[in-house]
């Protein structure tokens, strides 16, 4: 990873998410066109992001909402 890659690496995820515009966007498109290392990195980041988006929601403990409601009620009646 050379100096230019290091300067641009923090913007790779923003590029992946469509969160870049103007000069920042142009600069990274140009760099990706020339740098296989960053293209590889971008692909891996996409895999991580997509996997995270597919994670199942963990189960919520039974009775959680009832316990929270009771706690708020008790606090209200103090």
């Amino acid at each position: 990873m050379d100096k230019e890659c290091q300067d641009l690496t923090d913007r790779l995820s923003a590029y992946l998410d469509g969160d870049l515009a103007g000069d920042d966007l142009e600069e990274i498109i140009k760099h990706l066109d020339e740098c296989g290392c960053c293209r590889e990195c971008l692909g891996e980041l996409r895999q991580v992001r997509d996997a995270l988006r597919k994670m199942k929601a963990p189960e919520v403990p039974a009775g959680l909402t009832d316990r929270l409601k009771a706690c708020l009620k008790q606090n209200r009646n103090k």
Partner: protein
Amino acid sequence: MDELAEEKRILELIGAGDAAGFDLLVERFAPRLFRYALRMCGDESEAEDALQETFLTVQEKIGQFRGEGRLRNWLYKITGNACLQKHRANKGRRVTELRLDDIMTHEDRITEEPPSWRLDPAEQALSAEMAQRLEQAITQIPETNRQVLILRDVEGLSTRETALALDITEETVKVRLHRARAFVRRLLKDYFEGK
């Protein structure tokens, strides 16, 4: 009823002093806030404690919510703070943030051609093992980066919503998110490569 309309209804009930407003608030938001807290704390009991603190804070400070943003984002902000406070209290550790060096493997520094990931992550994401590895990886991300990753990639907030929920700039959200993803990438590199 859509989420925005529901938030409005909850605020109206609470504003009118109707206790049903808080019941509705808990029913509507507790499950998703619990999931956020669980991934932040990494422990079910600690997450439930943080959530209890969250709703007590909300009950006390709901008058300060000015309604300029989403109630949901304000709740994420309070939950995140409760989790960080628990973390500091329980672990006696300072909240940390990833630096660029933390996300670069040794190989990244010395070669221009890192190895390709061989397996299809879309399929891996559906496997129990992959899900477990991801959950474990999330708990290892430093807290400030972890918050951003969970809100953006797991909970699905936009960059702007995440910035508002965490009181940070959108630029900071982008940098923290990138470093968190890169950190997970580094932790799971062997797995993705099929080693």
